[in-house]
């Protein structure tokens, strides 16, 4: 049996609910995107049902600690097809055991969910570190990113707490949405294709007068804080993988 869902959290939770209704054997969960029809296996399309999803979410709240609930959510945000499968199996394992089994790192699905969560948290932390704002001429601080995982929901609070006295935008080019802070609260924004292109290409033309000075100062600082006698490129690249260099002012 193949369960096909749409890749949303609601869909995933609905799938868990429907599994417990029918309990089919040899079940595989897959997203609509990855689904390949198979002659020998029946498939079942999951229709998102907020009520069913809500019941499963509440049950998870009862079963899991705050740490594990966050891990569950993080693993979901990884958007990796195997992660969905592991999350599904993780739910089955959790609900089939009356006691708390989340500490059983010997179980492959528990370990896998913890592993995905760690990857996503690492990406979140990297975004908190590597985002470089540029100030536009009207005082807005902006930055475009394309993170490996969908981390914007996770980094929102950090930036809201920290940059409370400046308005800023963080935009995810890959997933085509972003967040905007207007000195009061954070809003989700979507740009159309043209606006997105403008943000990407003309970033230098809309910057404020001060921007080039501070970018230059930062590059100077980065250069003069380096100790040449201790050069260690391997370590450098391990900490700042090349795919992040495009964000970094000092690496331009």
């Amino acid at each position, binding site marked *: 049996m193949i369960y096909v869902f749409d890749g949303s959290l609601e869909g995933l939770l609905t799938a868990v609910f429907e599994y417990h209704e029918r309990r089919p054997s040899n079940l595989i969960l897959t997203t609509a995107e990855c689904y390949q029809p198979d002659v020998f296996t029946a498939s079942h399309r999951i229709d998102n049902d907020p009520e069913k999803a809500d019941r499963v979410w509440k049950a998870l709240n009862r079963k899991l600690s705050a740490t594990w609930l966050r891990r569950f959510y993080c693993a979901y945000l990884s958007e990796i097809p195997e992660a969905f499968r592991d999350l599904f199996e993780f739910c089955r394992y959790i609900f089939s055991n009356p006691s708390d089994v989340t500490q059983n790192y010997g179980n492959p699905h528990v370990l896998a969910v913890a592993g995905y969560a760690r990857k996503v948290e690492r990406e979140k932390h990297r975004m908190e570190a590597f985002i470089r704002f540029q100030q536009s001429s009207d005082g807005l601080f902006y930055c475009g990113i394309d993170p490996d995982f969908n981390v914007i929901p996770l980094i929102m609070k950090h930036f809201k707490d920290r940059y409370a006295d400046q308005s800023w935008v963080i935009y995810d080019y890959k997933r085509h949405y972003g967040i905007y802070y207007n000195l009061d609260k954070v809003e989700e924004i979507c740009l159309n294709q043209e606006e997105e292109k403008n943000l990407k290409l003309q970033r230098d033309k809309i910057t404020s007068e001060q921007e080039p000075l501070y970018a230059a100062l930062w590059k100077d600082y980065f250069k003069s804080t380096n100790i040449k*006698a201790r050069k260690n490129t391997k370590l*450098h690249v391990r900490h700042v993988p090349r795919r992040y260099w495009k964000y970094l002012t000092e690496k331009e």
Partner: protein
Amino acid sequence: MSERIREKLSILADAAKYDVSCSSSGSKRKNDNKGLGNGHSSGICHTYTEDGRCVSLLKILLTNHCIFDCAYCVSRKSNDIERAAFTVDEVVQLTMNFYRRNYIEGLFLSSGIFKNADFTMERLLKVVKKLRLEERYNGYIHLKTIPGASEELVREAGMYVDRMSINLEMPTEAGLKLLAPDKSHQEVIKPLGDVQRQIIQFKEEKKVIKSVPQFVPAGQSTQMVIGATPETDKDIMHTAAEFYKNFSLRRVYYSGYIPISTDNRLPLLGTQPPLIRENRLYQTDWLMRFYGFHVNELLNDANPHLDVDIDPKLSWALRNLQFFPVDINIASYQMILRIPGIGVSSARKIVQARKFGRLRIDQLKKIGVSYNRAKYFITCTDSPPMFRDYQATQIKSFILAESQSKYLKNDIQQLNLF
């Protein structure tokens, strides 16, 4: 204007880079006045230099003019270098603008000593107060205590900053006397002790009155220069252990000496900085703080130096084979931590996971144990039977044969003459 400030930043950042402390952790300062910035309890490294050290703070000197002549220091009086000084306002503007762009996690402010200690400390305090009070800046501030500054100034600074530090410079008093005749360890110990007492006092008061302000919430740290004077690793680590104990330091940093001077008391210009040694010292430091090792177990009169080719944990295990093999499924957490190839997070996972069933080799590997190293020291459910006991030297050669030392490359480089 902009050219001059670029020049100043280059000079004063260059002079500050030998201070290795860069951590931005330990402070949970909130941004509750809707200002700029907050503390991040685990800290954030915003970038890394090409030598692989993290950059999380804007690390600068207020000035590199200095009245002292310490042989190991690049800003010493007798050194012929360009001198510069920031104004208070310049430091504040730099910090604010770097922080707004998410370049940095905070400010690390140190200074050469001009006129006298109190005068210098007052200027540092002015920067800190302006940031906190006028600019409503709540990000991280690491302030260097100036040796010899009055207790009142240090105390006032402590109300605004997140971490204070003062450097021991040389691991032993004798070493310090040799290279910096004007300085003594006593000058370092006094302010460390003062701040430490006040931290405790503020914490006690906070238990009773909730509105007591924070005082140096991220604690204190210090730094020692390694390889400039002929101390043994034992001297260094025993000093470090003592300071951890007496002053509840958050960190002791070990900075491999980079030859910057032709002074004949110091290693020659062009000598390689002692990177391996520095690495082994940090490993020992970690073993003391997170793995429950006592410094005497790792370094004592019989073993005054750390092995260069293997890490100190493996080296301890090979000296103490009577404790091994350890049965993963019944041993205590403390004992599992001591097995080479198992770190803190694997040890925790093992202890939690074994409640659900006896662990096998494949599970250990998935948990993150580096099994090729650990296999000589553990037994688990499906361990192959051992028909003979290996000698420590044999185990060492097996492990060395399998592992790729990250330092091997450096050894080869040293052979090249041109």
